[in-house]
């Protein structure tokens, strides 16, 4: 699962919908893989306003990446800074969680990730 997707994903448990602690999910004992994906600057510009930057900072630090700037870059900044653009592309689109757990900070539910596939099936009483 790409870090971009992780930045959109919340806990699926009904009781967690109203809790801000249910996002982002926290990686636990995760293995990462890196894929090569062709640069797609238009995609980055399109999604940048929708990336929750604070959550991305948290995720990156929990996965042991060098710390990100405290605020999201603007499109103008990215257009000028090829390096920053390529780092963001690598982080959001090329870096994936392949194995491990994603843990909700509110209810503690652990979503298992196997071969990159996150298991979000819940027992009926949690839905």
């Amino acid at each position: 699962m790409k870090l971009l997707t992780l930045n959109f994903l919340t806990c699926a448990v009904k009781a967690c919908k109203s809790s801000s602690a249910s996002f982002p999910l926290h990686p636990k004992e995760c293995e990462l893989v890196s894929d090569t994906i062709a640069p797609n600057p238009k995609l980055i510009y399109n999604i940048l306003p929708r990336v929750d930057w604070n959550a991305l900072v948290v995720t990156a630090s929990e996965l042991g990446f060098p710390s990100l700037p405290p605020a999201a870059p603007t499109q103008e900044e990215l257009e000028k800074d090829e390096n920053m653009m390529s780092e963001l592309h690598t982080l959001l689109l090329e870096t994936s969680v392949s194995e491990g757990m994603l843990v909700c900070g509110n209810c503690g539910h652990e979503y298992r990730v196997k071969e990159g596939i996150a298991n979000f099936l819940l027992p009926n009483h949690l839905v």
Partner: protein
Amino acid sequence: MSRPEDTLPPDLHYNDTEARKYTTSSRIQNIQASMTNRALELLALSCPSVILDVGCGSGLSGEILSSIDPSEGGPHVWVGMDISASMLDVALQRDVEGDLMLADIGQGVPFRAGSFDAAISISAIQWLCNAESSEVSSAGRLSRFFNGLYASLKRGGRAVCQFYPKNEQQRTMISGAAIKAGFGAGILEDDPGTKNSKLYLVLTVGGSADEGTGG
């Protein structure tokens, strides 16, 4: 020919054998590709987008989303949800580019508000109607799905769901649930009255601040 929806729930119907059969049948692949292309045409995306594929199966639609040429507004990034582990296994073996999740759309759509530009669904949402049990009603499953889908799309976003309702009642129940969730909804029928007839539920999220740029 019996409808698979009438026999088993999708996670049991699409076991390893069925999943491989489904994915390697060139007839199914062609139909699936043409429905995906039709859905994309109805989404009218003008720039590379993040798309939710509801009931992504083995990733046949996703492969098309990943391969849209830049001159046609692609390529897109996608996240697929499916309840069949066997189908997702086939997707893994085919090395698709999108992210895959094992999830039951009748339990909801677990993404924060406004995540996706668009959603696509090919031959999946009629399954929501057949999971009646003492614990879960199909009305509850439809409402959790459409409410979650509505929230997960950005303002001005669109979803196109090709589906096979069993009868008029099911068709009304599905579109009614979408409207109740807040969508603007219309049903488009291609080749009406023929055996190739295809229904597309076209859903829009109103209140667009950026409709002009996102398409």
